[in-house]
């Protein structure tokens, strides 16, 4: 009986190893900076690109749900396009991490914009407080 089980085990192990190998090669996402991406961009490969949203580069078109901006790291910049609403923690002069692929047309097609924040670390909130109050007033004055 024993050989049968040894063979069975080996087959299972081999199948598992193959599945893991195939899975990794197909879904690996590389972490790069704009400079690294510029140096060696492969169209169609999945990247996670981190950088700062360059001031003046952000365009958001709510009708068409087109979001475009430029990510830079001080030495190189990469134009990014995304279909969908900008996440809440997103703005010019701020850091952002996007996941997607490099398009042969010369821009980065982002499928996901990651907003990350840690626990201990806080964002400015003072003036935006006042902003909420103003927003309440506008919406109330405007509502029925």
């Amino acid at each position: 009986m024993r050989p049968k089980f040894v063979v069975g085990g080996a087959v299972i192990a081999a199948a598992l190893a193959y599945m893991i190998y195939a899975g990794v090669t197909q879904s690996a996402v590389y972490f790069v900076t704009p400079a690294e991406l510029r140096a060696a961009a492969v169209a169609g490969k999945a990247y996670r690109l981190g950088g700062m949203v360059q001031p003046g580069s952000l365009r958001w078109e709510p009708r068409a749900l087109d979001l475009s901006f430029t990510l830079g790291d001080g030495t190189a910049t990469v134009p990014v396009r995304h279909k969908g609403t900008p996440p809440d923690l997103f703005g010019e002069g701020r850091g952002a991490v996007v996941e997607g692929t490099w398009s042969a047309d010369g821009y980065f097609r982002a499928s996901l914009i990651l907003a990350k924040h840690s626990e201990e670390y806080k964002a400015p909130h003072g003036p935006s407080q006042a902003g909420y109050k103003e927003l309440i007033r506008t919406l109330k004055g405007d509502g029925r």
Partner: protein
Amino acid sequence: MIPELGYGAAIVALGLALWGAVAAALGERTGRPALLLSAQHAAVGVFVLVTACFALLTYAFLTFDFSVRYVATNTNLGTPFYYRITGVWGALEGSIILWTWMLALYTLIVILRHRESARELYPWVLTVMLGVLAFFLLVITVAAPPFARLSPVPADGRGLNPLLEDTGMITHPVALYLGFTGLTVPFAFAMAALCTGRVGDAWITMTRRWTIVAWYFLSLGLLIGGWWSYHVLGWGGYWAWDPVENAAFMPWLTATAFLHSVMIQERRRMLKLWNLALVILTFGLTLFGTFLTRSGVIASVHAFTQGTIGAFFLSFLALVMLSALGLLAWRWEALSAQGALDSVVSRESVFLLNNVMLVAAAFTVFFGTVFPLLSEALRGVKVSVGAPFFNQVNVPLFLGLIFLMGVGPLIAWRRATVDNLRRNFLGPVLTGVAAATFFFALGVRSALAVLTLALTVFVAATIALDFARATRARARLGEPLLPAMGGLLRRHNRRYGGFVVHLGILIIAVGVTGSQAWSVQTETTLDRGQSAALAGYRVRFEDLTASEESNHFKVAGTFTVSDGRVLGVLRPAKKFYPQEQSPIAYVDYRLGLREDIYLVLGDFARDGSRATVKFQVNRLVSWIWIGGLVLTAGAGLAILPETKRTA
């Protein structure tokens, strides 16, 4: 004053736990009952003191004692009463206290239940439980002190993480920790078995129900976590293969394997070594999970504070794994298998295969989770693998497991004959094939969906067949039908509890398949009065309103949902918490058996004239929660004390 009391209590508890662990072991070695009794008293003392710690911390939360750093960071004057209590375990320090308290509670129950019934193993069980407790108390006193002071005292606290202001977040950690800590009990018994050399079946029999209880809480924790993710995080999914989720899923997989493999040991005296290894692995994975989520070594959306705590957990993990596996090697001779597998076509080998697949799944999850670390260490490249990897690798494994779920309980022990196979499986296989044809005719074209549904029907048919046969057998003895069914469930509660759990898993599988295959979504910007259409539903943007809540400010959209006639109004919103960098989405949804309508508010014009909304129709998601309820019922049935077999 209160914080100092809490800190003092933790230190005394640490001393007691250490003493108790040593005393129980000494008592066993020297045979002096007084020492064992002293260890027992120490354990009771630890429970009382940890309870006091927990109560004092809760008191500090309720009285807004912002001089305590942990209170100041996890609550503020606007936090509602309810969430001030749950805030106690809303972050690292408090959740460790909750964890320790549960562990102390389990220790107490072990003492009450097993001090007479498990004489030989008991002292070592106590040593291990108290040793683990001592480690957690060390964390409380040194690495993550919940009672640390903050000076000068701030006027108001920072507030609870808004994502945690949800009922799911109250029960989720509680269930999960009850599962994690509960797994310490079988581990302690396994260690006791290795220490005493009584590696027979005693420890397995004694811990069987413990394992089911822990497994059940773990399952419940995972399901509630999924529900929380679904209705709070606003991405329309319930499972993202995030490291934190994986951390809880891995011990669940190995614990499931263990629950099945013990049956072979009970029945055939096989797999002694394997079972011990599984218990050690499961316990190690619970520690690994805590290490993973608390150390910041692997980035996750649920980032917790980093600190020395990671080093603590890693050291303890190393200590546990090396000593436990060392003991295993030491007892190698006694563990060499006695029984042998008779045939490849038998219940033993089906169970074995089930175990191999579950452990393989746990391994792939582990591999994917630590992959970024691995690639950076070996190749110096930062690479991660996402959800596609986990899905691709695990789907075949889970399909295989579902298939085995149908075969395992009905196939004969030792060696299945062709006749046995035909008698038990011909009907279900035909039903499965018929189901596949039916779904295909219905227009289901995804091969994966057809296969999963057909397998599900096949397994359900095996369960129905078995239950019908057993009922008929009882009915033939003159019992009326319904009492016969009830008696069956009660009399063979473990077997049928298991079947009900399997049914729950099947329902969950259908929910997962359906939601993956048939959910649709769109994202669109609407002017006031404009509608969007999706899958036969129309959503009309009526209005945008703003309001000020006790601890946040809220902008809500009003949307009318109709499918020809008006179904209702949904109000997805964005909540702005002053302490947060970004607003929190508040999802609104309409749950249904067939599909959920799910709305998330995105961007909006400040004058309320325009709103961007994510509109999803998620199919069969409710089946997952229903499956969870069925699973709960099954686990409850299996936990019931076994009645003496009469039939």
